[in-house]
């Protein structure tokens, strides 16, 4: 029995989400292999080989993997699993946009179900996953020969990035399907920690009033705390911040040590993305805002006065 973990990376560095996925794989039991598919990504494979608990790294390095299209990546993964000698019983990827885009395609090509966004492993066939915006947890058992799974990274600790010494084995590329080509990318470069990996998150909602206020009021706080910045759907829809700031059921799922919700009402869909944070602080001028029902520390105040005061006090 062996488990194939799909590495999350950008051709240059291995992303933290891979480490949580390796831990989920280890809980299932069996040899853990990591597939690194990309272009000029040898450094990523070397990093994956050093992750504790990884037995083997498979490296598919080809120009047409560099853009991470689901069509090409799924074809490659399916070829790996279909090769009976590989013995793969499970394929796991983190629930990143790449994992969510690619794995259902893999599952359908293998004619198996996908188990989305697991937060716990009960045994090799049985997994726990949130449904209904996290208002219920379903324990599901799979009867398929191969289990195709995406992993909610907040459900599993990160495996140690160093200490392993797996062999890196190059594998041949599948043909380029040519069905989907990358036209361009507009990825924000930020000096702040990544939202899904941050220890502290400062998050703003519609109460910020404008993009200008969002930045003027929240950035000094985030700077002081070394925090990542998040937002609600309402703040993204209103154009205060880009889409990748959205925390929630249909945005990013986060679980930092500290989540500070500012001018956020606490809709079910937002709570779904942050209620597993260790400590939650809410600042809202409405004492009845639902966010206070999950906040460890609630401050009923006008954010435009309270946040600058907070910045000055820490």
């Amino acid at each position, binding site marked *: 029995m062996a488990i194939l973990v799909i590495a999350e990376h950008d051709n240059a560095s291995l992303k933290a989400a891979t480490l949580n996925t390796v831990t989920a794989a280890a809980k299932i039991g069996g040899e853990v292999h990591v597939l690194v598919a990309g272009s000029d990504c040898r450094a990523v494979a070397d990093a994956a080989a050093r992750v504790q608990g990884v037995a083997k790294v498979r490296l598919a390095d080809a120009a047409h993997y560099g853009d991470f299209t689901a069509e090409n990546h799924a074809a490659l993964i399916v070829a790996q699993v279909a090769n009976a000698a590989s013995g793969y019983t499970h394929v796991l990827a983190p629930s990143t946009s790449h994992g969510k885009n690619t794995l259902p395609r893999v599952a359908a090509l293998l004619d198996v179900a996908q188990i989305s966004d697991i937060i716990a492993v009960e045994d090799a066939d049985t997994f726990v996953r949130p449904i*209904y915006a996290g208002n*219920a947890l379903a324990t599901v058992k799979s009867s398929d020969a191969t289990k195709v799974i995406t992993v909610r990274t907040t459900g599993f600790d990160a495996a140690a990035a160093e200490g392993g010494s797996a062999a890196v084995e190059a594998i041949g590329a599948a043909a380029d399907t040519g069905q989907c080509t*990358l036209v361009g990318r507009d990825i924000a470069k930020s000096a702040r920690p990544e939202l899904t990996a941050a220890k502290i998150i400062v998050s703003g909602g519609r109460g910020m009033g404008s993009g200008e206020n969002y930045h003027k009021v929240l950035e000094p706080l985030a700077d002081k705390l070394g925090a990542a910045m998040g937002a609600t759907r309402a703040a993204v829809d209103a154009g205060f911040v880009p889409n*990748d700031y959205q925390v929630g059921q249909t945005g990013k799922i986060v679980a930092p040590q*500290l989540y500070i919700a500012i001018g956020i009402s606490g809709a079910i869909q937002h709570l779904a993305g942050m209620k597993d944070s260790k400590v939650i602080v809410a600042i809202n001028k409405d004492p009845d805002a639902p966010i206070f029902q999950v906040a460890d*520390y609630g401050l009923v105040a006008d954010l435009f006065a309270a946040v600058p005061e*907070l910045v000055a006090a820490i």
Partner: protein
Amino acid sequence: MKVLVPVKRVMDYNVKARVKSDGTGVDLANVKMSMNPFDEIAVEEAVRLKEAGTATEVVAVSCGVAACQETLRTAMAIGADRAVLVESDAELQPLAVAKLLKAVADKESPQLVILGKQAIDDDSNQVGQMLAALLGWPQATFASKVVIADGKATVTREVDGGLETVALTLPAVVTTDLRLNEPRYATLPNIMKAKKKTLDTLKPDALGVDVSPRLTTVRVSEPPKRSAGIKVADVAQLVDKLKNEAKVF
């Protein structure tokens, strides 16, 4: 160009799901049901393509119980031309839905299928990608902009870190994200008109699709409850609590 739009009937997004006391699932008795919000966005996008002269026909399709007819009528009130119900009382998991939709796509030969990225009940985020795989078509998930021109779909996608634009050969599958458009409200005259539009019903057997579930639900439970903490009087007390009680600074 024909556009197929799969729509799912789900618990309304304003309702908070309650787990049944016997742990078999979520209580759907007497709960308001609506079209999955991402699917409204999908219907709206397809209707806009028709209004722009790019699409010639918009066909809505839903898989599930007879009550999905309501969801299909809503799709037609937004502007879909006709609808297909694949009627089944069985539990339909994403792979089964994708197979049913493939069978419908084989009959209808659309150039484009637009789905929601995620059903807000099962939160699977699978069917569009699975359908694309079964059809052997390219896919663009999490779309915030769709342009159809020169036999290609150019789609801007919401991805981790920002946006990405891809070009797909047609036919193709697109799934919607929240920023793609703002769906219109169905007006009363359009709701009336929708009642007269064609709604065909098919059965999974007739489509030759085996819909047996691959996953069994062992149990459904409530997530651990988070209890409300305290209200602090002012910023000074907040900082004190965070430093000395929570020890996060």
